[in-house]
Structures are given as structure tokens and as C-alpha cells.
């Protein structure tokens, strides 16, 4: 894959990320309502939940294809994920069709989670079915390509498991926060005297997506970086995150109520359950990744320093 094609693929990943973030934002409110409801709405909303899940799944597949560990896993990912994606999105499309035919959805355009619901998700599911089939075919007809970039995992199993779980969770949360970030533009309480407080929150909402964008486009570009370079990047990012967190904390201290006034729509689950979790979540989502990265790099550099000390001892 040449760099132009790679950047194009990364751009597609970014577009899927944006679509998934907006879908996930609406899904969270919908599921919050569904869980709190006496009469279950899960059967009615199941095709929608499946469609959003499939869209989010596509994002994870794209990432695994853009950053494969090795050729075997790349091929396996194309085949297995392609089949699962095609199957799930086909089921989602089919279930929408059944609900329209059975009049549970009165037509292909009803009032729901999106302006063109369920037509938009039906078409999306059909498109994703085609994408899944395409991936699977590519996998089955795969021919070895020496120009492909691999990103072999450099660390041990425990760290790998931890990183997989943490990253997966981080991406899901960052998708929701990115959805909020975009939504703010449309639903902000423009003219509010607490606009600058909202700005502090808005910037923090965008930070996780910023990390992911930087990671995929610039950090993990196949070029080897030294430990010192990585430490500098982590430290610089941590400094920026701390600054934004301090700005947010300052805003909260001066105007404790600004989230209630201007941002209730962004954190529906908090207000449904009367839990004040969002300020902690957005702050941690900004600080944790560079903090953990810096900590890991410090441990790594200490380990390297020790092994360098031991090497001359052996020689003596």
C-alpha cells in the first residue's frame, strides 16, 4: 500500500469514526431510556441497536486492517471479520425490512433516532453487507503483498491483554465523547454567559478523538521512534491534557452549574440516574492515555538502563 492509498484508507477510517460517534451518541440515550422502561422497547429498537453495533464494529475492523500485526492475522481478519460483518449487517437490514412489512415501523420513514429512520440504517446495513462480502472475498483471494505495512506487537501477553481491553473501552468512550463534541455545535446554548466554561468542556470532549487521530495518522506510521522521542511526545501531551483539565476545573469551580445549564443533553445517562460522572470521565479520558504511556515508557527505559548496566558486568 503506497502512502497515498494508506492516507485515503485512514481518511475512510476517520469518516467511519465520525458516523459511529454520532450514532453511538444517540444510541446511549436510546438505551438509557430502554433500560429504564417498564414496557420493553428492545424488540422494537433491536435492528437499530444492531445497526449501530455493526457500524462501530466496522471501525474496529478497519483499524485491524490498517494496523495488522502480521500477514496471517491480516488475512484472517479480512476473512473472519468480513463474514461476521456481512452476516450481522444483513440480519440488521432484514430485521428492519420485516418491521416495515409487518407495520411495526409504519413505513421506511418514521420518527426515531435519526431524521431518515429507518431508511438510513437500512441502506447503511446493505452497504455494510456489501463491504463485509468484499472483505471476505479479498481475504479468500488474498495474495502475499510485500509492500504491506505490519505493526508487530512488541510487548508481553499481560500488557497485550490490558492494552486490548483498555483501548477497546477507550475507543467506545471516545466515540461517545466525540459524538457529544459534534453535537455541541448544533445544540449549544448560544448566548449563555457561561460560554467560556462550555468551551473548556468542549475542548476536553475533543481530546480523545484527537489522540486517536494523531495515533493513526502520525504516530503509528511505520517509522521507528526512539524511546526518548516517545517520552517527549507523551510528556508534551500530558502537559496539554493537564492544562485543559485545569481550565475545566477552573470553570467548574467558578460556575458549578454550567453543565446543568448548557450540557445536560450531552450526558443524558448522568441526569437520568442523577449521577455526576461526566466531569470525571472527560477529565480522565484526557489525562489517562498520555499518563499511562509515559509511565510505561519510564518503566521501559529503566529496564533498558538496567540491562545496559548488566551487560558490562557480564563482560567483566
Amino acid at each position, binding site marked *: 500500500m503506497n502512502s497515498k492509498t494508506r492516507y485515503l484508507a485512514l481518511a475512510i477510517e476517520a469518516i467511519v469514526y465520525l458516523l459511529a460517534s454520532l450514532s453511538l451518541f444517540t444510541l446511549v440515550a436510546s438505551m438509557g*431510556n430502554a433500560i429504564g422502561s*417498564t414496557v420493553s422497547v428492545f424488540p*422494537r429498537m433491536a435492528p437499530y441497536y444492531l445497526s449501530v453495533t455493526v457500524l462501530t464494529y466496522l471501525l474496529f475492523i478497519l483499524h485491524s486492517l490498517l494496523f495488522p500485526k502480521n500477514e496471517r492475522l491480516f488475512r484472517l481478519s479480512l476473512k473472519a471479520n468480513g463474514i461476521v460483518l456481512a452476516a450481522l449487517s444483513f440480519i440488521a437490514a432484514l430485521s428492519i425490512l420485516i418491521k416495515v412489512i409487518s407495520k411495526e415501523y409504519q413505513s421506511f420513514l418514521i420518527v426515531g433516532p435519526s431524521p431518515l429512520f429507518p431508511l438510513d440504517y437500512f441502506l447503511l446495513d446493505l452497504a455494510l453487507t456489501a463491504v463485509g462480502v468484499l472483505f471476505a472475498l479479498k481475504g479468500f483471494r488474498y495474495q502475499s503483498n510485500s509492500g504491506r505495512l505490519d505493526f508487530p506487537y512488541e510487548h508481553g501477553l499481560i500488557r497485550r491483554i490490558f492494552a486490548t481491553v483498555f483501548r477497546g473501552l477507550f475507543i467506545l468512550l471516545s466515540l461517545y465523547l466525540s459524538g457529544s463534541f459534534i453535537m455541541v455545535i*448544533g445544540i449549544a446554548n448560544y448566548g*449563555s454567559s457561561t460560554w467560556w466554561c462550555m468551551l473548556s468542556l468542549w475542548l476536553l470532549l475533543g481530546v480523545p478523538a484527537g489522540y486517536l487521530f494523531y495515533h493513526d495518522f502520525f504516530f503509528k506510521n511505520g517509522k521507528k521512534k526512539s524511546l526518548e522521542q516517545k517520552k517527549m511526545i507523551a510528556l508534551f501531551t500530558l502537559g496539554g491534557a493537564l492544562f485543559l483539565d485545569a481550565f475545566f476545573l477552573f470553570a467548574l469551580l467558578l460556575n458549578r452549574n454550567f453543565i446543568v445549564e448548557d450540557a445536560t443533553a450531552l450526558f443524558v445517562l448522568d*441526569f*437520568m440516574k442523577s449521577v455526576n460522572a461526566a466531569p470525571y470521565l472527560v477529565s480522565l479520558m484526557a489525562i489517562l492515555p498520555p499518563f499511562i504511556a509515559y509511565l510505561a515508557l519510564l518503566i521501559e527505559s529503566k529496564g533498558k538502563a538496567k540491562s545496559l548496566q548488566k551487560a558490562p558486568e557480564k563482560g567483566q
Partner: protein
Amino acid sequence: MLLPLVFLCSCGAAKNPDISAYFNKENLTFHEGYKILQLTDIHWSSNTDVLTQGAYLQAVVKAANPDFVMVTGDSLLGATTSTAQAIAGVFESFGKPFAITWGNHDREGEYSPRWLSNLFKNARNSFYDEVDDAVFGRSNYVISLTDSMTGKPAWDLYSLDSNSYPESQNALYYNYDVIHDDQIAWFQQAAAYSASQNGGNAVPGLAYFHIPLWEWSYAYIKDQKGLIGEVLENSANSFAPSELRKAYEEAGITAGVRFWPGYKQTAFFDDAVKVGVKGFFCGHDHSNDWGTKYTSSAGTAYVGYGVKSGKELYYAHSDKRGWDIIGGSLATLHANGKFDLTHYYVQDDSVYTVHTEEVTGL
């Protein structure tokens, strides 16, 4: 980076409009037996089947046949703009004048509060108003029903925004807000203005808002049976203020506080009773439809819940009465300053079966 600039440019100075600006511009004529239907906690979301639920709300209005519909908050939760437009369309379809108060959840949707305000303000038959002022909250306004003979106010319907979550919030959880002091001061001005239009005599009124006052709890401690309805919230409010919990314990009520009031007691009940408010109606606690008369040092008035309108989110079924606690609450106003109250329990079945309970002479 355009966002902060837009924020900056649109900042405006707080205004202090004349008190008459809070009263309905379009005249509503009072007649003996004028009926106000309270709908509450409709809770439409992006999951709602708006055609089915819209038909249900229309059935409630048809059963009660009111002159005016007052919606006391939480019409929406986690809704999209199309859901909000759909509910405004249903309110219009009643073919009756209507008004809304804000609940704590109405702000939680994919729209700005201002957008929602404009939607309700511009809807056909809407008497919802939001005056550009410095008074806390949004839905602070008065619907005045005038006497056709004298042109003087006969009854006033006060809409108050009981807001959502207070500034003094805990670091880990949100309490519910109250009607703020400046809103109470505004209310007193409005009541005084109305009295001035009535030859200096207090005008009887009803107050509609979303979150119950502490007086609901105090009234329940004194009269658990109440005049109408039941307290069916099945869990105790673990965040209830300690003063209330203590009052319940002292009264020997072991089930705990099954009301979700604001975080502090306010002077609203006392101040409102003094100027002629006869009834206080809220929503918020979906499973409660209980109400009774409460007497404080300032006077006596009815305090009570409406009936949750529809099955969206959670609702209660009364085993004692044998029906779902969904429908609406109808106040029938009399020229002598008294009112009757009828709860309409409209069942969500194929024929919309109706059960009623009534209290008269309030």
C-alpha cells in the same frame, strides 16, 4: 475555533420586562366549570412509537374533554428534534389551547433549550411563553382566565419552572432543584398585578410545575390516605434530604420517603397560598398520583400529583384499584373560587378504557 466567537457575539444583557408581559396576550374566557387537563411525564424519546403514543394522548384528551391542557414537564427525555416536533404536533392536534412547564429532563435531547422553547412557543394553540428576563428558569408565566362580563381575571394558572439540578450539587450525584427565590418574588409580583386588575382582590389560582415541594411530604406524613390516588413509587429516595427522612422516621413511616422533591424547602407554598393559590400540581414521580389538602401557618390548599400520561419510561399499576396509573388529571374551576379534581385513568388498551376518581369542593 469559530464557536467561542459565536458564543461571544451572542451574549446579551439580562432584561427586566414589565410584569404584564408574563400574562397571556390572547384572551381566554372563564366560564363556570372551566376544565384544565394536566398531562405530565409523557417522556417521549427516540424510542417512542409516536403514532401509537400520540393516539393515546389524544384519547386522554377526548375522555376528559378539557377547555385547556397544561403539560407539567418531562414531555421529552433523550429525544431527537423529530421526536420533539412530533410531540408538539400532537399537542396542536388536541385542538385546545395548551401550555407547558419545563421538567428536569426536557433539556436532555438533541436540541438546544432555546430551540425547544421556540418549538412550543410557535405551536398552534400554544399559550407557552418564555419572557426574555433575568428570572431563573424558563417557563415562568401566567395564564389568566377572564370573566366575560366584567373583563376581570377570574382564575390564574401559574406555570413555574421547578428547574432541574441545583448549583449546590454534590460531587458525586445530582439532587433536584427547587423554585428559586427570585421566581417566588416574580410570582408575588404577578399575583399582585393580577389582584390589581381585580379591584385589589386576590384572584384564585392553580400552580403547575414539575418537581414536588417539601409540602407534599409533610402533607403525606399527616394524611397518608389522602383525598385521591396512591403513593406507588416502590423504592425509598435514598438521596432525600435528612430533614425529610427524619420527619418520616418520627412519624413512624417505615417505607421511607417515596417522593423526590427539590433539595431544600422553599417559601413558595406559603407565599402562594397567601395570595389565593388553591391548588398545587406537579409530576416527576411517575408512580404517585396521590394528593390531599395541606395546611401550613399561611393557609390551606390542595397539593398533589398529576397522573402520568402514557407508558413511556416507567409507570405504576395499582393492584388495589386494578388499573394502570396512566392518564391525566382534570381540574374543574368554579366561579366561587373552588375547584373539583378528577383523575382520568385511561388504559392503553384497544378501546382506551377509562376509570375515574373524583374529589369535589377543593
